[in-house]
């Protein structure tokens, strides 16, 4: 019998870290998350079950310090030449168990990567934030406070809008930034995150990348207010809420890199998010395969196993084939990230590469949404049943297709790249 590890991935892409750590993380998740995940939906508000699972994952296993340099108590992953591939492996294993946990953990990495990956390294900020994540016995989260009420996709659409629609402002007052604005939906909001990365503008209405600022805001500062978590269709382990910044003051050096470079580094971040999205989806689909395999092998049509019926085999064969293709594509996004300055001959911060990676994420999202839907239909009256786990993944992964500017922005990026569109 083939196993989930038999789904394709280019062997030469696998990082040294992956070879050893994948087994560790998988075993951990199989013991601490997968047996309990069916109860997570009812735990969406209080996280009575979810919080201890995060403590084990992020503190006992140590994942929350993994990006930081070893001299600050971390593992040095962000400084390695395989940070995207390790991110992929981690996100895939987490996605197999619970995509809500996967996104909560990976989004903690997300704003930190803006100051950790060459050529965008800010040593002073790394040193500043390292103790928050490395010297603690509780899970600590970060968040990327990006979306705004007037239109989420415009902030993501830096290539066209250049940050011109951002309404969250940063004003320099002496040696402090004063932040004002309203953000929606950041993962790890709703009282979870201790640190926010906040995309904002130093000159409202300007599309000049130099006016785009990425500033770190500790969540416990005066003027930071978070709403209660939203109730959603799924993704119970990921809390989202409104955040208001009212005259929040942070040191001037909490800005990631400065005029121009903030926008570039932020653009790099988008690719990391899209790559991780692919990994959440391929991980979830690998679990889909496991659960579907059991159902079609033990349940019957015409008194024969479902999988032995040619028509049904045609459906489940396509599902498995799609998982295989998506996994190859997903690993390709990770490798584009790790080749950094020369992926396909273009820098990672180029619109070309952002467009390509968005394109893959869009494709993988569509395949995942369709395949989970098909798999539920294969299960028939059991498809909507939480005991088979497929419906939970189906609910959870839909948001992956929708986030980060959504499907339409992916299509626009692809069109802009392939057809030289100038006004999209």
């Amino acid at each position, binding site marked *: 019998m083939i196993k989930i590890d038999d789904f394709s991935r280019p062997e030469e892409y696998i990082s040294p870290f992956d070879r050893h750590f994948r087994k560790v993380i998988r075993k951990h998740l199989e013991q601490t998350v997968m047996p309990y995940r069916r109860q997570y939906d009812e735990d969406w508000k209080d996280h009575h079950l979810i919080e201890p699972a995060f403590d084990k994952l992020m503190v006992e296993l140590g994942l929350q310090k993994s990006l930081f340099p070893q001299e600050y108590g971390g593992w040095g992953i962000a400084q390695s030449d395989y940070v995207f591939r390790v991110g992929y492996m981690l996100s895939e294993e987490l996605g197999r168990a619970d995509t809500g946990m996967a996104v909560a953990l990976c989004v903690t990495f997300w704003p930190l990567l803006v100051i950790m990956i060459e050529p965008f390294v800010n040593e002073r900020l790394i040193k500043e934030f390292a103790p928050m994540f490395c010297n603690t016995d509780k899970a600590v989260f970060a968040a990327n406070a990006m979306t705004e009420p007037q239109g989420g996709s415009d902030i993501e*659409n830096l290539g066209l809008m250049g940050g011109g629609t951002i309404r969250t402002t940063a004003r320099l007052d002496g040696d402090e930034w004063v932040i004002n604005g309203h953000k929606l939906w950041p993962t790890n909001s709703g009282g979870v995150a201790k640190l926010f990365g906040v995309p904002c503008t130093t000159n409202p209405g300007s599309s000049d990348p130099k006016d785009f600022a990425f500033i770190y805001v500790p969540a416990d500062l005066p003027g930071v207010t978070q709403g209660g978590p939203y*109730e959603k269709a799924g993704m119970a382990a990921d809390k989202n809420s409104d955040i208001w910044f009212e005259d929040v003051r942070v040191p001037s050096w909490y800005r990631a890199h400065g005029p121009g470079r903030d926008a570039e580094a932020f653009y790099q971040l988008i690719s990391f998010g899209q790559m991780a999205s692919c990994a959440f989806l391929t991980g979830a689909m690998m679990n889909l395969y496991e659960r579907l395999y059991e159902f079609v092998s*033990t349940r*019957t049509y015409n008194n024969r196993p479902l999988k032995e019926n040619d028509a049904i085999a045609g459906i489940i064969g396509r599902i498995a084939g799609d998982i295989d293709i998506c996994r190859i594509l997903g690993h390709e996004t990770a490798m584009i990230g790790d080749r950094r300055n020369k992926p396909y001959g273009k820098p990672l911060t180029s619109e070309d590469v952002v467009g390509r990676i968005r394109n893959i994420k869009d494709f993988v999202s569509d395949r995942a949404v369709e395949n989970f839907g098909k798999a539920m239909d294969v299960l028939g*009256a059991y498809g909507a049943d939480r005991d088979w786990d497929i419906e939970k993944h189906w609910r959870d992964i839909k948001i992956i297709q*929708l986030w980060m500017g*959504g499907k339409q922005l992916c299509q626009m990026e692809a069109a802009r790249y392939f057809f030289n569109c100038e006004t999209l």
Partner: protein
Amino acid sequence: MRKNLDELFIFPRQLIDEESGSVISLVRQWAEKEILSKRMEYRENYSRLFGEQRDRLNLTIGLQWLTLPEKNGGFGWNDYANAPGITSVLCEIGRADASIGAILAMEYTILATIAMKHNLNRKLCDRLASHYVSDEVRTPALILPGPGSLGHETPLFHGRSIGVQVTTAKGGYTLSGEGLRPLTAGSIADLFCVVCTGKKGEPCIALVPDDTPGIRRTPPVLATGLNACINADISFDSATIPKENVIDRPGIVEELYTWLNLYLGAVSIGAGANFFEILSDWSETRVIKGGTTLKENPLCASVLAEVAEEIAMAKILLYDLAHLLSIPEEWSGTNASRSFTFSGIIGSRVQAGVLKAINRGMELMGSAGYAKEWHAEKHWRDVKTIQSLLCGVAAEAPVRMDTARFFYNCTEL
């Protein structure tokens, strides 16, 4: 939104007579006053308000006895010609809450095989009338053939396993079957309509009141949608029922599927229509590229168009099915296997179309489509649940086999 739903999603209005029209209008008023205008309150107090609204709909308006003969105290909508009217009623309910619609769809499906003028089973109809024409809300559950279990060969209905056997007992019949999954409401049902087989393996249906000794229910099953229709697996340990509670006329199971496809299709169309309303409001109030209203952006407009197309086509198809069932002679005769086949084809198309519309619309709404606050995601979960019930087992494969059997005279599928 400038136009009303009837102007936008057209269907042949001549199928709806004046009396039906007034009932449909009443149900629409109920939906808008009691649920659509109070979405937030309804969601936050769901378990209480769901019960209250079922009371109002079933007992105050009287939809619980809608399809019973007038002689039995019903509305007398027990003629094939009432199919389009019932379809419209269920659309209106689905627009408000698919769970309420699904439970009524189950009841109307069961009664369609018993109380219709053309195949009236007088004794059973009288018995059911005393059950339904009452001051208590009733909840039936339907147990259809489904996936079998490896190593347990069962009699089949077109490839689907029938898990319940009926044997003759003193004064009636005895039912036995383990771990059966009703379509909905197994945990709260007061009557089970079960597809089963006799000694010769011929399919029949049995009506089993919930107070029959020998019924076991598992704890509630958590599910994607239709959350108010709390489900559970059911077992029958030699549950004995009166003889008249078993109906074994040829084609009875096909009839169940036929009506179920129509009625659950109506519930999903209603849910799709309300999703359309939510999306319309969204697209008029949100902007893209710093200022353009979402609906005025060509790409967004094309997605909006796709949503409307899917719902519009699904509705037209569904009313074609209602018409086919209401006047079968105008659709090439009263052939049960023809109705069964076309209901399967149209039923699966309708569910797929509505779900596609909601999926595409959610893509446009982004995170808001996913948040419970906007109510879009509930329709998405409810319709997906209905689709899985109807198209399963095996992703429409059985429906496709039914279709191939009809069109190509396949004999071994």
